[in-house]
């Protein structure tokens, strides 16, 4: 199928700023779904609120645009009632890890089969450039004009610690890897997390003097390295990309079905 078959053309041109990384994630995600040959009627995309969350409006899957931080909770309900559907949950960094942090850790802990995509631009884009839990120490934001003193989460370390069974990271610069990792995450049975470093040239880029969209992407190229590389040993500040965890653990909906069977036997 062509790209046009996966989108709601009536909402284009999309509303993101010129060069916003979220559009590149949209592009890569469509490619991933196309390459996997998934039927778009078997996909449910659930998003919260944020520039990132607008992605669900552009895709012609079953989609739900819900509440800020609560996408995983809605997605859990959908998956439990219709476990045969592929559930994709794109979230902003604020959406996933500030207001939605508790949903994130518990969905991962349960290992419910869905794909969480953290579109991490290190800022609250939609509401005007406030810092997020991913902005990082020493960065600038509209709410941190004298630099941010909050230390960031490492999304990958966090996801691993709370039990996600597939954990990966890529960037909007690494478009082929981004697509490949989304494919792997969708195929994995269990809770998958893909963190994608995305650029917000309008707020994060401007405040932190990282330049325009492609200059921010050049920076992603320079500051990342494949997981386990020699370069990381030389320079600890490099951010690793690739697959960090891929493991099997009993999946929540499958286990729940077993509970129903057990309960039926007792009655």
């Amino acid at each position, binding site marked *: 199928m062509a*790209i046009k078959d996966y*989108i709601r053309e009536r909402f*284009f*041109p*999309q509303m*993101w*700023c*010129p*060069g*916003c*990384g*979220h*559009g*590149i994630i*949209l*592009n*890569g995600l*469509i*490619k991933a779904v196309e390459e996997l040959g998934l039927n778009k009627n078997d996909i449910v995309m659930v998003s919260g609120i944020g520039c990132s969350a607008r992605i669900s409006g552009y895709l012609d899957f079953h989609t739900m645009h819900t509440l800020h931080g609560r996408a995983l909770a809605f997605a859990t309900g959908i998956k439990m009632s219709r476990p045969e559907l592929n559930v994709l949950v794109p979230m902003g960094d604020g959406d996933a890890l500030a207001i939605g942090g508790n949903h994130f850790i518990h969905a991962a802990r349960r290992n419910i089969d869905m794909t969480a995509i953290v579109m991490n631009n290190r800022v609250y884009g939609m509401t005007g450039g406030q810092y997020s839990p991913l902005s990082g120490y020493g960065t600038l934001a509209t709410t941190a004009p004298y630099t941010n003193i909050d230390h960031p989460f490492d999304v990958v370390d966090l996801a691993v610690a709370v039990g996600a069974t597939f954990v990966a990271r890529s960037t*909007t610069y690494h*478009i*082929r890897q981004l*697509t490949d990792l989304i494919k792997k995450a969708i195929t994995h049975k269990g809770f998958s997390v893909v963190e994608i470093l995305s650029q917000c040239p309008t707020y994060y880029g401007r405040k932190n003097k990282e330049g*325009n*969209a*492609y200059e921010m*992407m050049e920076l992603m190229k320079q500051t990342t390295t494949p997981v386990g590389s020699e370069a990381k040993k030389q320079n600890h500040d490099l951010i690793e990309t690739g697959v960090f965890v891929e493991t099997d653990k009993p999946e929540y909906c499958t286990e729940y079905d077993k509970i129903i069977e057990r309960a039926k036997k007792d009655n």
Partner: protein
Amino acid sequence: MPKAKLKEHKINRRWCKGCGICAHFCPKNVLEIDKDEKAVAARPEDCIACRLCELRCPDLAIEIITE
């Protein structure tokens, strides 16, 4: 499989926002941003049909059509 050969760059000028990502990362310097802030294929003869511009466009505005 022989390498795909370019037929045309299909650029949707209504969707393109002139961000310059396609032009900046094109390995063959084929693309430019014109005075209306839209991407154009200035040197199509140099294109190797790698599709990197198409894959990275945030606005789904560029498509590489091959023969």
